[in-house]
């Protein structure tokens, strides 16, 4: 695989930050009670991840090794502040719904993990692509989890789309089915854990099939521990 293809493959599937590396689980489980909440936080994380990867990659040769972590954290924190102010200005209701979880993007381990493991060792274009793909991988899981929880819990999809896209989007809400009483457990935190577990199980179940489909059938199957950092930099 070429480096570009490998980065895409790693970010979306093989080394997905949410369902393989299991990073950033706190926002992942806390805000995914609707698709729109998941999408909003996913986009915010994606921007921060891409921005921090690019910035770290540009300045990587000037950062002394001993203080790299504080520098990374400061870069990420500035980017999160930018995203927070932007959301405050343009998607105020969504900003209020997501609440504390926007500033908490700073503590999302997926972001500092990529800065440390990838961006500090690779050039600008590859780092930007890695940030985009890891962010997308995270976003897809957020949206998927949000969709399942919203559908099972409320019977709706895309409720509150106007929070993110403006007033015209309020027609996007789909009432898939009506419940006499909502299935609250899916919307509450325990449901998030259970559904997350089921998503990971499904991923593991279809892993081999999809891997064969993407890479081709000639690779040997070896069972190894999932590596959290630094795998793609060796490629």
């Amino acid at each position, binding site marked *: 695989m070429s480096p570009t293809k490998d980065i895409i493959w790693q970010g979306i599937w093989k080394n997905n930050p949410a369902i393989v590396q299991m990073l950033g689980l706190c926002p992942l489980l806390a805000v995914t009670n609707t698709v729109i909440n998941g999408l909003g936080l996913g986009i915010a994380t994606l921007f921060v991840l891409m921005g921090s990867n690019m910035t770290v990659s540009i300045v990587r040769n000037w950062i002394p090794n001993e203080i790299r972590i504080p520098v990374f954290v400061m870069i990420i924190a500035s980017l999160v502040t930018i995203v927070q102010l932007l959301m405050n200005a343009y998607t105020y209701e969504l900003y209020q719904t997501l609440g504390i979880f926007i500033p908490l993007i700073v503590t999302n381990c997926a972001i500092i993990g990529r800065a440390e493991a990838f961006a500090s060792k690779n050039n600008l274009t590859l780092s930007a692509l890695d940030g985009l793909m890891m962010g997308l991988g995270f976003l897809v899981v957020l949206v998927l989890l949000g969709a399942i929880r919203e559908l099972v819990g409320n019977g709706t999809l895309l409720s509150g789309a106007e929070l993110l896209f403006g007033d015209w989007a309020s027609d996007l809400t789909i009432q898939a089915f009506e419940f*006499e*009483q*909502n*299935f*609250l*457990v*899916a919307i*509450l935190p*325990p449901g998030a854990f*259970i559904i997350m577990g089921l998503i990971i199980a499904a991923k593991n179940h279809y892993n081999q099939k999809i891997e064969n489909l993407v890479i081709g059938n000639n690779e040997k199957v070896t069972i190894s521990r999932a590596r959290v950092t630094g795998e793609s930099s060796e490629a």
Partner: protein
Amino acid sequence: MSFRVSSSPHNRVQRKTANVMQAVALACIPGILAQVWYFGFGVLIQILIAVLTCLAAEALCVRKRNRAVTPVIKDYSALLTGLLLGISIPPLAPWWIAVIGSIFAIVIVKQLYGGLGQNVFNPAMAGYVVLLISFPVSMTLWLPPLSILSYDISLIDCFMVIFTGYSEQGYSLTQFRTDLDGFTMATPLDTIKTGLSNQQTYSELLNLSIFSGATGQGWMQVNLAYLMGGIWLLQRKIINWHIPLSFIFGLGGLSLIYFLASPDSAITPSMALFSGATMFAAFFILTDPVSASTTNKGRVIYGLLIALLVFVIRNFGGYPEAVAFAVLLANMCVPLIDYYTKPRTYGHVG
């Protein structure tokens, strides 16, 4: 005569899982009959729905896992899970409540962990908790004893309410629960919880129509019936005395201390022991051989821990009944309890 060489444990009486499960199910019968007598046929319908769904879910899961279906169904464990869940559900709750609870109990709590013997949590109680936090309204609408209802409820009415929401004459569950003065009646524990938080005293609450005995009509008899079934199980040595006894003494003791300290704001010890699910839980829920502690010392700790949790949640928590939560919390502690109460091996020190 032939000599058999077998590894430990060398049990003198060899009992199959199916026999144990069957005996526990049989021992429920007096309690179920008492429940039907005081609360109507709804109980039987709920049990039927839950048992059928559990068996179907179990068969489907086992098939999906490529195991033989018949031996798994014939160990009666799915039947027992459905039975226990059906007993715990309010008699006139909508039918889909029992279905969702049973599917969750069997598929997620039992089969996903690997089937009988592998589950960490008590399936029936985990299913019950999911229902309680998902559908708090339906799951707390208990019917008062039939004798103080303003309407008669026939078997057909029960069917109609469970499957359509309204009885033959068009009464809803809320109307059945309203007394002649227009007050909604709840379970004794629920009434006390609400009353105490409204600054009423315990002795004032006992004047309400739902308490025409010391512990609330109907509930005491149901609890006594389950106690009878439990004693039969003890006598047949299907269950050990450690868990039920430590639970009952723990709950009674704690309630007594609290009652003596503040008689007007506490649930009385007799109420604590003979209302709600106390006796049913002590002999039928806590003693689940898979998710309970397995050492004798551990069983005592397990029973006491659940008693403490039930006491705390009933008196200070948000829910009037606490057995299901207490059991799940204690299930989580079981590996730790078992680790520290491992019996000493013969010939080894400490």
